[in-house]
C-alpha cells in the first residue's frame, strides 16, 4: 500500500544543509498497522508529510497504492492525498469556529460531489467516529476527546485506505487515549492501513499493532 524507496530529505543548502531523513526504505502492506517510534526531532512528522505529498523529497520516491505520489504535480498529489490518505494530528488541526459538520465538509469540496452524496459521506463518517450527536456543535465547544473523534471523522469522510496519525494521543488523558486506541482497532478491522508516529509507549503494548519501526536521527 505504502512504499518508500531510498527516501532522503535535506533542509537548507551548502554548509547549512541539514539532513532530516536519510535513505529510508519502508513497505507497508494493505491493512497493516505500523507504529513509527522515535524521540522528538527524529523526523517522524517529516516522513509522514513526505508520504502524503505535503513535502517534496530531496531524493527517492513514495508510492501510495502504486502511484508515485512524490513525483506528481500538485493537482494530482492533492487528489491522491484527498482520496487515499486521512490525517489525524496531535493538535487536531480542526477549524475551531466552524461546526463539526462544516469541518467534515472541507475534505469533500475538492471532489465536487453532489449535495446528496456529501451528506451521505458526512453521516457515515460521523457514525463511524461516534460523534453524530454533535454534528452541529461548534468545535470550540467540544471536549478534547470529542475533538479527537471529530478529527477521526474528518479523516474518514473520504473513505481513505490509509490513515496517518502524528502523535495522536499526546493531548489526550488516559481514558480518552484508551478510547482512541479502541477506535483505531475498529479502523484496522475495517481494513484501513494505519501508520502511527508517536513516542508514546502505549502503542507498543497493543495487540493489533503488526510492527514497530524505530526511527533515529533520520534513519530506520
Amino acid at each position, binding site marked *: 500500500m505504502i512504499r518508500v524507496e531510498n527516501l532522503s530529505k535535506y533542509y537548507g543548502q551548502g554548509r547549512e544543509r541539514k539532513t532530516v531523513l536519510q535513505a529510508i526504505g519502508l513497505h507497508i502492506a494493505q491493512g497493516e498497522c505500523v507504529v513509527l517510534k522515535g524521540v522528538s526531532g527524529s523526523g517522524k*512528522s*517529516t516522513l509522514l*508529510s513526505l508520504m*502524503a505529498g*505535503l*513535502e517534496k523529497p530531496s531524493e527517492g520516491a513514495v508510492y501510495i497504492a502504486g502511484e508515485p505520489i512524490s513525483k506528481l504535480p*500538485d*493537482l494530482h*498529489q*492533492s*487528489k491522491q*492525498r*484527498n*482520496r487515499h*490518505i486521512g*490525517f489525524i*494530528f496531535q*493538535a487536531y*488541526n*480542526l*477549524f475551531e*469556529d*466552524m461546526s463539526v459538520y*462544516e469541518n467534515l*465538509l*472541507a*475534505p*469533500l*469540496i*475538492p471532489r*465536487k*460531489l*453532489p*449535495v446528496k452524496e*456529501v451528506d451521505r459521506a458526512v453521516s457515515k463518517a460521523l457514525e463511524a467516529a461516534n460523534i453524530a450527536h454533535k454534528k452541529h456543535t461548534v468545535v470550540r465547544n467540544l471536549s478534547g476527546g470529542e475533538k479527537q473523534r471529530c478529527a477521526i471523522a*474528518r479523516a474518514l469522510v*473520504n473513505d481513505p485506505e490509509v490513515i496517518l496519525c502524528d502523535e495522536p494521543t499526546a493531548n489526550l488523558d488516559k481514558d480518552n487515549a484508551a478510547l482512541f486506541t479502541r477506535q483505531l482497532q475498529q479502523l484496522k478491522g475495517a481494513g484501513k492501513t494505519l501508520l502511527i508516529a508517536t513516542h508514546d509507549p502505549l502503542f507498543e503494548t497493543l495487540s493489533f499493532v503488526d510492527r514497530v519501526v524505530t526511527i533515529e536521527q533520520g534513519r530506520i
Partner: protein
Amino acid sequence: MAGSFFHFLLLTLYKNRFFHATTLLMAAVLIFLLASGLFVVGSLQKQTFLNLAQQPEFVVRKLRGGRPVATDEQLLYALQEIRGVTAVRGRVHGRYDDPVFEDTGFELVGIDIFEPSLTRTLRKLTAREFEKLSPDQMLVSPAVKELLRQNYYESEYLFHRYEGGTMRMEIAGVIDRDYALQANDVMLLPMEKAREVLGLPYGTFTDIALEVPNELELDTIKQTILSRYANVEVIDKRKMAARYQTMYDMKSGVFLSLFTVVLLGFVLILYFKYSHVLSSAKREIGILRSLGWSINDLLRLKGFETLCVGSVAFMGGFIAAFIYVYGADAPLLGRIFLGYGELPVDYDFKPFFDPGLFAQLYLLFIIPFSAAVIVPVWRLCIIGAKEAMK
C-alpha cells in the same frame, strides 16, 4: 459540488470578517467618492445638453468695432428671407446690476407676450404663468426671489431705468427649479420694459435667434449670412456643444486623475495588508492542504473571496453614491462642481443609471484590487503544509 464550495466560501468569509471589514470599508469609501464626483459631473453635463437642445441653432449679433451692438429690425426681416431658416426671433436680454446689491447682477430677459414663436425654453420656463402675465409683472428664478425677499422686496422690485428714473415691477411668480443651472439669476419681464432698463431703443434687439430644422443646411446658411453681412457674428450651437463637452470631459478627467493617485495608495495598503496575514490564515491553508486541497483549489477559494469582497465594496460605494447624489442632491460635493456663483444654485439631480459608467468604474476598481492581492495570495497558498501547521 459547487454548493459545498460556496458554503465553505461563506464560512471562511465569515471567519475572517474583521480582516475583510476594514478592506471593505476603505474600498467602499473610495468608490463612493469617485462615483459621486462622476455622477455629479455626468448629471450636470446631461442637463446642460438638454438645455442646449432647446436653444436656437444660430444666434446672430451685429458688431461695431468688434463689439456687439443693438440689432435693428431690418436685419431680422432680411434673415427671414434666407432659404432654410424657419423661425427668426429678435431677443432682448442683458446684464442688470442693481446698485444696492453689491457684486450681484441679474440676467434680464425680455419676453414678448404677443410673440407666438417664443423659444422653446422660455415657453417651458413659463408654461404656467405666461398667459396671465400683465405688462408690469415679471417672473424670477427661485434664487433671485430669495435674494429679493431678504432685501424686503417681497412682491415688487424697483428697477433703475437706463435713461434715468425708476420702474416698479410686480413679482408674479418663479420659474421652474429645473432650469436653475442655466437660469439661476434670471428675471423675465415684458420686452418693452426690458428695453427700458437695458437702454435699447424701441424696435431693436440684443441679438437674433435663427432656427434651422435641416442639419445639412446649417453650414450653407451660416456661410450665406457671413458673406452677406460683414458686420455680424454668428454663434453656432454646435460649437457651444463642443465647448461644453470639452469642459465636462476635462472636469471628470481631472477628477479621475486625482482619484488614480488615491487608488494607487489604496492598492499599496491592500498589498501590505494581504502580505501580513495572520498566522491563523496560514494554519488554515496548511490544514486544507493536508485534507487534499490542491493549490488550484486554494487559489480558487481566495480568488472568489477577493472578488466577493471587492464586488460588495464596489456595490456598496456605488449605491451609496447614487443615493447621495440623486437622493440627497449631493450636499457639499455638488458645490464644488456647480461652483460658487453670486447666487447659490439650487439644483435637483435627476436619477440616471449609466451602465457604461458602472462597468467602467467596476473595472477601474476591481482590476487594481485583484492585482494588489495576487502576489500575497499566491505566497500564502504555496507555503508548505507542514510549516503552516506548526
